[in-house]
């Protein structure tokens, strides 16, 4: 397995993970408004415990969004700073995909709809299915939608995950049988997905300055 350091600060949780020697170790904590305090010490700690230096890694991965604007920008800036100074490539991983991977690994659910609350009556929406290597892959692009715009055709067997299902429970209950009440993205799933992207050498493995957040919400200012 490639040596990859992954970080995620897209939700109120703060986490880092490291893949090496066919194993994954991670650190996870709830840190509302305190990511800036913990993220670098957590990174430093996980690397020193594995007795690895940045230069020995193969790539840096980060939860690139959607999520809290400040959070995904923090992760992108940290990923850029680490990767640029250690001359490593970066892999940005969808936070929705990381949530999908979590329910697959933990609950064996292979077909997942992700809805994270985006406020303003909208959700960040993702549709995922596990491939034969047990890695979640998008079957439609992540997007920002109103719950009423979600399409449930051919999605009868899917299970939901994400804060959006709780917030718009009444609406989603009409369309779906069940959802899993999880919403905190974990770096250990980011790192799994990044290892897959790295192995495939996807165009997702980029130089540091291309490590940019994916906000999905583009309109943030009004004249």
């Amino acid at each position, binding site marked *: 397995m490639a040596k990859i350091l992954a970080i995620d600060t897209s939700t109120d949780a703060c986490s880092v993970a490291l893949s090496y020697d066919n194993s994954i170790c991670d650190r996870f904590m709830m840190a509302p408004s305190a990511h*800036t305090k913990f993220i*670098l010490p957590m990174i430093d700690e996980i690397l020193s415990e594995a007795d690895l230096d940045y230069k020995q890694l193969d790539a840096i991965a980060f939860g690139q969004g959607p999520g809290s604007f400040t959070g995904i920008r923090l992760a992108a800036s940290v990923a850029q*700073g680490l990767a640029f100074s250690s001359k490593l490539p970066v892999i940005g991983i969808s936070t929705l995909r990381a949530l999908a991977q979590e329910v697959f690994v933990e609950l064996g659910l292979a077909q997942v709809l992700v809805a994270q609350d985006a406020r303003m009556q909208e959700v960040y929406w993702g549709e995922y299915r596990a491939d034969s290597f047990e890695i979640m892959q998008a079957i439609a692009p992540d997007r920002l939608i109103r719950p009423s715009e979600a399409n449930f055709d051919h999605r009868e067997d899917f299970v939901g995950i994400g804060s959006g299902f709780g917030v718009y429970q009444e609406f989603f209950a009409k369309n779906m049988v069940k959802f899993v009440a999880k919403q905190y993205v974990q770096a250990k799933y980011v790192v799994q997905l990044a290892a897959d992207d790295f192995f495939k050498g996807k165009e997702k493995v980029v130089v540091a*300055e291309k490590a940019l957040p994916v906000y999905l919400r583009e309109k*943030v200012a009004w004249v």
Partner: protein
Amino acid sequence: MIILGIETSCDETGVAIYDTERHLLAHKLHSQIKLHAEFGGVVPELASRDHVRKLLPLVKEVLLEAEITLQDLDAIAYTAGPGLVGALMVGAAFAKSMGLVLKIPAIPVHHMEAHLLAPFLEPSPPQFPFLALLVSGGHTELIEASSFGEYKILGETLDDAVGEAFDKVAKILGLPYPGGPVLAKLAEKGNKNRFIFPRAMLKRGLNFSFSGLKTCALQHFKEFGNAEQTKADIAFAFQEAAVDSLVIKCRRAIKEHNFTQLVVAGGVSANTRLREQLNIMGKEAGVVVYYPRLEFCTDNGAMIAYAGARHFMAGKKTDMEIKVYPRWEM
């Protein structure tokens, strides 16, 4: 000692490399003016989004221009405040992460201290102690700078900053954003004898007030219409009154505290009329007046690198927390 400086506190991404022996090696600036123009002011979320896109490409450019590699860096300095929290965070997170990998300190710099030190980047710099007049978009302060790191505010604005007043009056006159420099240009065409605006708080003290001046400009604009010449006349009268207030308070502070040097910095220190008047006052009062070069009056990475270098040499300690201080007293 070689220091990388990073500025992302507001709407400019500035990066520079300063060498304590060879001085400024390279600097680059990306301005977001176009990005915010249609909104008539800085939109914080848009500013942050732009910083994260532009910062690293600029860092690469300055390293190339300075002909150094990452291993040559002894420290990184970044603006930690005051400023927009999201914008500050981009520079802070990037700088701290670089510092972690390169095992060098990432030093938080006070944006206003950096403005104040900007004239030290010039060939014949001032020497402590001196009086500083900080005039920018967010600040208007008279500061007693006794030594590096030791600053006392002698006077400050009680309402708008002078740069803010320039921008607001420009907006009233319908000038393009950001209006300060445009208004100054228009003032050159103004009729000197048409309007005279009041100077606020002249009698006593070292504090400033500019909001009355702004209101006065608005009233004149409403009453006398928006003919091109009238607008120029209002611009002239406004600038004269604003500059006068600044000069009068400087002269008073110099008299009261026996300063021999005056350092003027911040965006408004680029103003030609202000420089003219301060130079005249300086001659009369027997003080030498120092300014940054024009491009270092407004936000830039060079002043951050320089301020960081001084802190580094003073032995400032750093840790791994990504610290920003959106509001930070100097």
